[in-house]
């Protein structure tokens, strides 16, 4: 394989008509206890998509398992028609804020620069061009004045925006964001929403784990209602109904719970 071919492959390919994300029959287990059952999903391009559901419904797990950060017990995940593992260069990721140590000795700009590491490849150090690209992303989240600060000196909302800027620096087509609105003040929430809308206007697809039912209708186009299984998914106006919400939030299916218990007991 020539270098250019290899590069083209590494950049990821977009098949015509293939959806940005397609999950087939995915089941996920933590310590052998199933937490997601038979997930089937097909998400449309260029939309803001919310994943909602009660605590412990497996919202974060859905994202992590799709990305391969949590092992899948079964099923496959495709991005633009190819296995997600081959398409990671098309993906931007905002993990939960609590997932990292904010006392780590790095500056705000260092963290945003990490978004560029993927295109830098092995051993190459970020150059001036990368620095400028990272600063642009910081400007988009209005943190340019904080570039040199150590990350522990930021408020929760600012930390969330740093993660968002890092994801923007990835220049992805499909974004996964794990609770980007968690613990942020109203002004930050609006700033983040504006960035999501801008991504959509550029045809990007954004999948967001969301925890506030009040804002779903206002912020998103599409919704996935999740409670260990997909209760419903589709455009907001079709599936964000009272009945579906009741089915999602009205307790787990007792049978699924019992089955999960049984699986765990048998295998320990």
């Amino acid at each position: 394989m020539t270098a250019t071919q290899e590069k083209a492959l590494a950049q990821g390919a977009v098949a015509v008509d293939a959806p940005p994300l397609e999950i087939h029959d995915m089941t996920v287990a933590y310590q052998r206890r199933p937490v997601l059952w038979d997930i089937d999903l097909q998400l449309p391009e260029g939309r803001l998509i919310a994943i909602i559901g009660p605590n412990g419904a497996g919202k974060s797990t859905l994202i992590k398992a799709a990305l391969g950060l949590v092992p899948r017990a079964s099923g496959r995940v495709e991005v633009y028609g190819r296995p997600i593992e081959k398409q990671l260069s098309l993906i931007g990721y905002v993990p939960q804020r609590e997932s990292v140590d904010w006392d780590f000795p790095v500056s705000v700009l260092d963290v945003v620069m990490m978004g560029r590491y993927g295109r830098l490849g092995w051993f190459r150090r970020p150059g001036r061009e990368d620095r400028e690209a990272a600063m642009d992303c910081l400007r988009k989240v209005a943190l340019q004045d904080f570039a040199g600060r150590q990350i522990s000196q930021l408020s929760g909302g600012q930390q969330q925006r740093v993660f968002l800027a890092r994801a923007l620096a990835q220049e992805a087509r499909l974004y996964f964001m794990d609770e980007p609105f968690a613990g942020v003040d109203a002004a930050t929430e609006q700033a983040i929403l504006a960035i999501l809308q801008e991504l959509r206007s550029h045809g990007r697809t954004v999948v967001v784990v969301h925890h506030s039912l009040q804002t779903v209708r206002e912020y998103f186009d599409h919704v996935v209602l999740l409670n260990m299984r997909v209760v419903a998914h589709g455009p907001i106006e079709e599936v964000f109904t009272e009945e579906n919400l009741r089915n999602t939030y009205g307790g787990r299916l007792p049978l699924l719970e019992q089955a999960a218990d049984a699986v765990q007991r048998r295998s320990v």
Partner: protein
Amino acid sequence: MSGPAPWLAVLALATLQAVLFALVGADRLLGWVQAACASAGLPYNTVMVLAGSGLLGICSAVIGSYAVLRRRSLFGDAVAHAALPGIALAYLIARERHFFSLLMGALISGVLGAMVITWLRQSTRTRQDAAIGLVLSVFFGLGIVLTSAVQRDPSGAHAGLEGFLLGKTAGLISQDLLLIAVTSANILLLVWLFQKEFLLLSFDPGFAAVQRWPVPALDILMMTLLVAATVIGLPAVGVVLMAAMLIIPGVAARFWTDRLAALLPLSGVIGLGSAIAGTYVSSIREGMPTGPVIVLAAAAVCLFSMFAAPRRGIAAGVLRRLRMQERVARQNLLRSLYELVEEAPDSAVTAEDVAGKRSWGVADALKLLRRAEARGEVRRTTDGRWTLTDLGLQRALDVVRAHRLWELYLVEQASIAADHVDRDADELEHILPPEMLHQLEDRLKQKGRWPEDRVPASVHPLEGVAGEGR
């Protein structure tokens, strides 16, 4: 980011060195060093000891810093202790003190210990700290038993084996030191090469995986370097104290800097300094083991850093608290003065009035008033009373505004009873940032609750105000 490219680079580096070494040979290499020392007028043996232990000090400090940042400090400790049975077994098999075999034995049993920790954690749900403690003590116990068996060996060729317990640079010959120096240099080279990758791995492995970095492979590489640094450190520092070489420099360096790019060299320098101090002291004092001296030297630096570092140090913290107390007292004085004369801004008050308002002693109130006088915030009237100057009034207005804005907000927006808010506001007014004051103003303006004059009236009756006191 997948593919063999980086691993081939590492392999090529190793092969190149192996070929060079095979061509030159250790003796000729050492001969060159000896010649160079002779021509420069340096004592060859001292140069070798310092180079070996110094490089070791740098490399264990640098790779150890990553372990500290990743909260894996005790991992190196477990590996070091787990190495002891390997050393004893290697001796029992080889029946002589062959340095390289001893280190290989240490490496194998150290890695085995690390694997047992991982296995315990993943397969038996034993927690990490328990698994580390378990492996550390059991392997160490086994090591001590085996070492005593070796000591009873009548051939008497076991001299130097006890050096592995507490470390002894004096027992090392040039060939040993060469091995230590070359391995240390290689570890440092690899850390430098994988700088960006190790940063990402340490800070956010999940993000790294989404970016297609081979996280498990990088993790194994970093752990391998940690184990390698630990093993080559054993003869000089000893299994008991090796962990300190990995942990202390990184902890000390963290006090001085917020950037990994500065933390790694700084911790390297601390490691270098302690290693050389330990080596030197143990060489001039007969029977003094190296390890404890190195550890004490590093600990001294760490203690100093803990105390004296700007921002993160203890002294800086105490200073900050004192300044804050000073500021709070000053602002409380200004607000009390303002509230005492609010009705008639030109009137003057006595120190007793002020003391009565804040439940301060009169002497304290007088002291604060004198300090305020020195700052030009108050002045004494002809009859010995105190009154705010223009500057003082200006500053008092700012403080009162912050206090009352917050009170107003608590009462109006947070529905807290008016007689409760004074104390809350009393603590917060000193730390509210200006942006937040503007936000408070905006909110109150939106609700039509913003008074036209600059200072809103108090939401609760003020104690000891105007009139009776005078």
